[in-house]
């Protein structure tokens, strides 16, 4: 869409923001509250700008002024509660469309916002003259659930001593959570940021720190920041805490911050940041765009790395000392990632959501270049393969990742991704997994572009984009200059064609505008007579997540005479390709064989000969002959990974072995290793062992070979000769010469062998003997490794090594032989298991006294214990894990423990544990842990839509529904996680465990009702029926009449195909437009959709609103939060398997709950009446509606009571079969 418009950027707003002031006067750590104001300077771009829409969530807004005149405003956020909380709909299709609509309704990219300010009429005239408007908003945040995260350790001392800190976080544009702004990546402005904090704290924010000034009482200081480079609000961040400050010794304009006591780690961790800076500046031939850079390391970070304008917030867990090996490359990668996003993502921002892929792609691509330079080409290619495999697997599983969704005129019907259970129209509706894969694909596509136009041109393009942007950034605001800092797909493509002169249209069309990957199947035959290789490449483009590829493909054939590249054209109907071979069969001549890289090697070709003879014997047809006369050593399809593809290629085992041994490309070696798993022969064994020993070989290939060798050994069990696989190798490499059973004292100075030493025992433990047990020899060997492990002379920590040894023990476990189903006791513990358990106990206990880095050993021990439980060696019990999952343990430990609980929940089908997990999702202070629980539950679900389970009941459906509907409105990522989990459990349609409404219960009750109580009007009777239905749906859910028929209709057809599932969406939308979206207790909400009718009343009214708001200070700051809370408490009761028991109490509570609401309503109604004369006309109809609603509700409540109190209804509730 954007590509068609070449003419720059068109703002969706009727004004242009030029400058924003954010001033936070007070940060209270005790109460976790923030008070401040913002001032936005805007230029109207239309005549008569009378309404300004801004983004704001969670903030309590006290007053709004426009040019010093009080301005009325309206606050409405449909995302707080996506579906009307009375709705009974429980299918995900309905939710997804409603959620997309809700997000779209406040999407700042479309010019919408939660906060709608009416420009005072006095200023309208000025609007004509396009005069500047200053919008001043006072706001506060109380216990924010999103946007800002407070970490306040519960210990003695003042806040600084306790290490309390606060920082901003969010997924995509989430700045509106902590201050009102235009929360769009495409609205740039300059910034002035002021933060007044305790004198012992430091406030780190974007831009240059101009000055720090004490307040008059000298107990606080104010940090003044100025950000002269136009920046979008989502790129603004803040971190406040008692940070230790480290000025980078190499670059004085770079400052690092960490929490108290961690300074030594910070010094070490940051000692190479300057190299990354140098690298990026060099390849981009562009200076770092901001005048300073700050890194802040915080606890309980939302994500490991988040980049903002001129600063990055990292997880404190990335810090490490010089003794740690494994974390070092991980941390360096994180730093490099953060820095690449400084250029593309922060400095250059995106024009719209559909252009996101360009920025993610470029930052990911230059990050890849950094990897190549720092960690080497092998590592880089390995990484590319890993990423490619990941995206291919994901797309084939879920059906495609679309980089550049084109929304044609916003027509709902053209859903570009019908295979997904969420919409990709907005970043906030994406599943986290999908977003990660999106980023992955984006940088892979950038690499494809590089392949097409060369790296030189690629870097020129980046340089051009950056220099354009930096020219624009230095300009004072002029109409369109700043939009040069926004990058769009079309702009990017235009730059490419300008710079390179090449047309990459087909490439973009294939990979960017279309989702899916290519799936190739390859096989070949050698025709001896013609000396031709007949290659057959087929494609699967019908299954989900695939697409058809037409175009060139590179094939590399290694022949006896050398390696030859061929470019074939994949066309519509041609499957077979004839490739002439260069060499005649003449292997008898001893000659070195040239490889692709020019190297010439001696090869032992006897394997080929043997194989050739055998196959000649087998096939007598002559055509399909891969005989002794074949000059082919191995064949590779698309060796450069220049297509996003999966290749399944068939070639003989000896060819894979040659490829593994002699091909120098790590990707080829890894492919060969995974192919060799299918050929458990002595020759494969030899090839793998040789690779394992070869020190020139890339260590990750060797690590992979270990696992392959273990698999092969297991397949060859009966014919395996000699000691267990890898044992003698390990002994030779790492054990003492004099006593081969004792490992050398640790010396990890050679990292390759360190990684190998770590991996080999883990792989060895996977070996199995004839009884399918881990061989005694191997187990003893591992136990000896643990016993003799000696790290005293090592300058590196061995914590990861020891953790992997425990993992090896875990891998050695096999299911216990359980004669009778007796309880597992200490006495009948297997002797081997006893040894293992003793080691684990000792390790776990030692960890309490001498904790290891990142508690890696505890993590491994917890996994081992779960494995012991799972295999029936020790009693299955989640209590240990639950105690380790408590808040206050290191996050890695918590996640490992939670993983065990999740696993327990699935294996033991425990509703208690599931409830415990879900409670944690709702209440845990750490956002990361909450996210992690849901994603682990999604990956290892207690049940799925395909399986039956006792856990699947209405209470759970309601709880999860509530969680995604309103319980997670403060965190986009968490909400999408909840959606994912719901999808995993119940699928897109209505959960099967819900009772079908056409059971007759409703109707019967209705009839009965009518009989029992003839005074009630038919209408009320109808509602009564619904109310009764609610009772049996077990929760405080109410269906408005309008929703009732639709739900009925749907239940009649529970097996509807997907298109029908989409059908209710417009209906839901329509209803949203008709009825106030907000929940009844908050009368202050109005729908933003009714733009034209809303009369913004006088200042007086808004003041009333403010007072009203002030009165509600004790209550949650955002409207619509209370009902979910109440309902959550209702639901947090443990779900009993017998539905009949839970029904009555919840039903009666439900009634009470409603009465409470009534009080609210009355109170508010009174308040409303005071001002009624002011807005009588406009609201009369609405009020009337509301009154009617209330009446209905009251009726319904009464009905509910009548039902619960009536013995007949009670009976019929318990057993629907009794009602006749």
């Amino acid at each position, binding site marked *: 869409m954007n590509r068609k418009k070449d003419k720059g950027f068109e703002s969706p707003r009727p004004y242009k923001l030029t400058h924003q002031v954010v001033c936070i006067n007070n940060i209270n750590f005790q109460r976790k509250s923030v008070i401040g104001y913002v001032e936005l300077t805007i230029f109207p771009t239309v005549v008569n700008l009378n309404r300004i829409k801004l983004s704001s969530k969670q903030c309590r807004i006290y007053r709004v002024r426009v040019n010093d005149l009080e301005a009325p405003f309206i606050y409405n956020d449909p995302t707080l509660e996506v579906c009307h909380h009375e709705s009974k709909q429980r299918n995900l299709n309905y939710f997804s469309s409603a959620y997309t609509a809700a997000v779209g309704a406040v999407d700042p990219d479309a010019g919408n916002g939660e906060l709608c300010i009416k420009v005072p009429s006095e200023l309208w005239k000025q609007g004509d003259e396009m005069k500047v408007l200053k919008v001043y908003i006072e706001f506060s945040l109380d216990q924010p659930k999103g946007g800002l995260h407070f970490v306040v*350790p519960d*210990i003695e001392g003042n806040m600084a001593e*306790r*290490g309390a800190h606060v920082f901003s976080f969010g997924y995509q544009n989430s700045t509106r959570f902590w201050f009102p702004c235009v929360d769009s990546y495409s609205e740039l402005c300059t910034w002035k940021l002021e933060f007044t904090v305790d004198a012992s704290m430091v406030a780190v924010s974007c831009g240059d*720190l101009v*000055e*720090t*000034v*004490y*307040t008059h009482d000298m107990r606080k200081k104010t940090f003044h920041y100025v950000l002269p480079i136009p920046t979008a609000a989502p790129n603004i961040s803040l971190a406040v805490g008692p940070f230790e*400050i480290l000025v980078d*010794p190499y670059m*004085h*304009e770079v*400052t690092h911050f960490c*929490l108290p*006591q961690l300074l030594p780690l910070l010094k070490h961790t940051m*000692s*190479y940041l300057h190299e990354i800076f140098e690298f990026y500046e060099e390849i981009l031939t562009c200076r770092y765009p901001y005048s300073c850079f700050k890194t802040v390391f915080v*606890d309980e970070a939302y994500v490991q790395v988040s980049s903002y304008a001129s600063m990055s917030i990292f997880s*404190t*867990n990335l810090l490490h000392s*010089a*003794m740690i*090996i494994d974390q*070092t490359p991980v941390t360096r990668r994180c730093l490099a990632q953060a820095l690449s996003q400084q250029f593309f993502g922060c400095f250059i921002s995106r024009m719209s959501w559909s252009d996101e892929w360009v920025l993610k792609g470029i930052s990911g691509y230059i990050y890849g270049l950094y990897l190549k*330079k720092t*960690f*080497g080409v*092998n*590592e880089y290619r390995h990484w590319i393969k890993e990423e490619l495999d990941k995206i291919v697997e994901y797309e084939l599983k879920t059906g495609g990742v679309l980089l550049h969704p084109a929304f044609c005129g916003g027509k709902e019907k053209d859903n570009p991704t019908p295979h997904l259970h969420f919409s990709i129209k907005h970043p906030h509706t994406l599943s986290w997994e999908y977003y990660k894969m999106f980023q992955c694909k984006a940088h892979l596509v950038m690499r494809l572009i590089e392949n097409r136009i060369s790296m030189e041109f690629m870097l020129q393009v980046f340089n051009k984009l950056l220099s354009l942007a930096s020219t624009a950034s230095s300009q004072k605001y002029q109409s369109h200059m700043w939009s040069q800092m926004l990058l769009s797909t079309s702009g990017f493509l235009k730059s490419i064609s300008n710079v390179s002169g090449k047309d990459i249209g087909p490439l973009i069309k294939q990979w960017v505008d279309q989702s899916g990957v290519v799936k190739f199947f390859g096989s070949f035959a050698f025709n001896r007579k013609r000396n031709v290789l007949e290659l057959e490449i087929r494609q699967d483009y019908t299954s989900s997540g695939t697409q058809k590829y037409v175009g060139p493909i590179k094939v590399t054939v290694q022949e006896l005479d050398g390696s030859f590249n061929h470019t074939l054209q994949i066309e519509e109907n041609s499957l077979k390709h004839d490739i002439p071979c260069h060499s005649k069969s003449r292997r008898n001549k001893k000659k070195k064989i040239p490889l692709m890289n020019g190297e010439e090697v001696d090869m032992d070709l006897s394997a080929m000969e043997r194989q050739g003879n055998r196959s000649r014997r087998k096939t007598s047809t002559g055509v399909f002959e891969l005989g002794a006369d074949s000059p082919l050593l191995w064949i590779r399809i698309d060796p450069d990974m220049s297509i996003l593809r999966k290749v399944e290629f068939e070639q003989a085992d000896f060819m894979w072995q040659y490829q593994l041994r002699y091909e120098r490309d790590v990707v080829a070696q890894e492919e060969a290793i995974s192919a060799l798993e299918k050929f458990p022969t002595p020759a494969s064994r030899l090839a793998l062992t040789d690779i394992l020993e070869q020190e020139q070989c890339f*260590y990750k290939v060797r690590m992979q070979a270990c696992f392959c060798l273990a698999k092969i050994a297991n397949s060859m069990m009966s014919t395996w000769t000699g000691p267990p696989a890898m044992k003698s190798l390990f002994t030779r490499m790492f054990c*003492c010469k004099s*006593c081969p059973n*004792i490992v050398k004292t640790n010396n990890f*100075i050679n990292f390759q062998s360190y990684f190998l030493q770590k991996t080999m025992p883990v792989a060895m433990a996977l070996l199995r003997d004839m009884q399918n047990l881990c061989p005694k020899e191997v187990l003893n060997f591992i136990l000896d490794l643990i016993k*003799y492990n*000696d790290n005293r002379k*090592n*300058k590196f*920590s061995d914590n990861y090594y020891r953790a992997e040894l425990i993992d090896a023990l875990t891998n050695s476990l096999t299911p216990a032989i359980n004669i009778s189903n007796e309880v*597992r006791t*200490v006495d009948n513990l297997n002797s081997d298991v006893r040894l293992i358990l003793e080691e684990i*106990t*000792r390790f*776990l206990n*030692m960890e309490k*006294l*001498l904790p290891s*880095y*990142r508690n890696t050993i505890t993590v491994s021990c917890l996994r081992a*214990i779960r494995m012991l439980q799972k295999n029936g060696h*020790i009693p299955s*019990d989640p*209590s240990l894990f639950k105690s380790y999952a*408590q*808040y*206050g*343990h290191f*996050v890695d430990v918590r996640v490992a423990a939670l993983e065990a609980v999740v696993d327990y929940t699935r294996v033991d089908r425990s509703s208690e544990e599931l409830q415990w997990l879900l409670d944690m999702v709702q209440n845990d202070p750490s956002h990361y842990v909450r996210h992690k629980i849901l994603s682990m539950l999604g990956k290892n679900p207690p049940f799925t839509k395909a399986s039956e389970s006792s856990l699947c009941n209405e209470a759970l459906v309601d709880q999860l529904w509530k969680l995604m509907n309103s319980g997670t409105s403060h965190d986009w990522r968490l909400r999408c996680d909840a959606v994912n989990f719901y999808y995993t459990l119940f699928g897109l349609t209505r959960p099967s465990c819900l009772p079908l409404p056409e059971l007759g219960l409703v109707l019967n009750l209705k009839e009965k009702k009518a009989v029992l109580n003839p005074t009630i009007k038919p209408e009320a009777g109808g509602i009564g029926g619904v109310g009764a239905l609610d009772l049996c749906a077990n929760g405080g859910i109410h269906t408005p009449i309008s929703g009732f028929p639709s739900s009925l209709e749907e239940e009649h057809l529970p097996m509807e195909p997907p298109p029908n599932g989409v059908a209710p969406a417009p209906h839901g939308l329509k209803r949203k437009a008709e009825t106030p979206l907000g929940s009844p207790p908050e009368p202050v909400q109005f729908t933003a959709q009714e733009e034209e009718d809303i009369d913004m009343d006088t200042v007086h009214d808004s003041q009333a609103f403010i007072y009203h708001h002030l009165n509600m200070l004790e209550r949650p700051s955002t409207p619509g939060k209370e009902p979910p809370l109440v309902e959550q408490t209702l639901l947090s009761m443990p779900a009993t398997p017998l539905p009949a028991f839970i029904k009555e109490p919840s039903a009666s509570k439900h009634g009470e709950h409603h009465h409470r609401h009534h009080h609210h309503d009355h109170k508010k109604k009174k308040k409303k009446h005071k001002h009624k004369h002011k807005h009588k006309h406009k609201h009369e109809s609405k009020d009337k509606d509301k009154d009617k609603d209330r009446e209905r509700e009251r009726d319904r409540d009464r009905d509910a009571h009548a039902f619960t109190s009536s013995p007949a209804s009670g009976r019929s509730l318990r057993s629907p079969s009794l009602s006749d």
Partner: protein
Amino acid sequence: MADPASVGSGSLSASGTRSGSGKTTTSPAENYYLARRRTLQVVVSSLLTECGFESAEKAAVESLTEMIQSYISEVGRSAKSYCEHTARSTPTLSDVVVTLIEMGFNVDTLPTYAKRSQRMVITAPPVTNSPVVPKALAAGQKRVHPPYIPSHLPDFPDPHTYIKTPTFREPVSDYQVLREKAASQRRDVERALTRFMAKTGETQSLFKDDITAFPLIAARPSSIPYLNALLPSELELQTLEETDSSEQDDQTDNENAPSNTVTDEAGADKENSVLPPGGVVPAVKPSEETVIDNPYLRPVKKPKVRRKK
């Protein structure tokens, strides 16, 4: 004259033998003492005879015997004390003389008394075998006095009481044994320590039936969990210092090496050219800081009065 005495003695001896025959359990030591006593009785009897007594009651003789025995014992004891006081082991004449003087006895009268005419000579007491003192275990040859030590001085004690026997074993150079030992030692220490901790504190158990088997120290949440998890333990720091001091040369290498498997030579050179080698960052910093103009290092400004609201 000698009759009563002899009678006495005979009767006594008879009683002695009787008692001896009567009580077969009588120990040789007891016999020895009884014989001595008998001799004393004879002495007392003869003295009485000398003084002109015809006969004496048995009880009186007994009393006198008791007295004389006490007297003699006292003389002996005192004499021994005097001798030991002068660091000797055998009393000499002078010791006895001093003792007697001390006890108020006129020593000068002794020679004349001894030479008196009417003194009676009594026969030597029958030889009774002195009690066999159980001999201390003699080990080895006792050393003879070297020539410069007077022979009256006591003998050397048994050699084993003073001779040190240097025990000498080959130092265990066997690598395997050493490693074995180090490993088991460490394991024992760890096990003992963790058991102790588990016994003294809260525990968690993997088994419901036997909560003492495999006790796990209870997991306790900490308020700042990342500190323990990230900071190297003291033990590790110690190791680091040790290895650092021993491998000073590797220091610079160490700084750059952890990057990963592919050490970046160019990068390392660059780093070294910018900075003097070694862990220089902290050392150089103070001097640099004077030059560094970083806004976070600037002093905080005092509030301006006019800024007052």
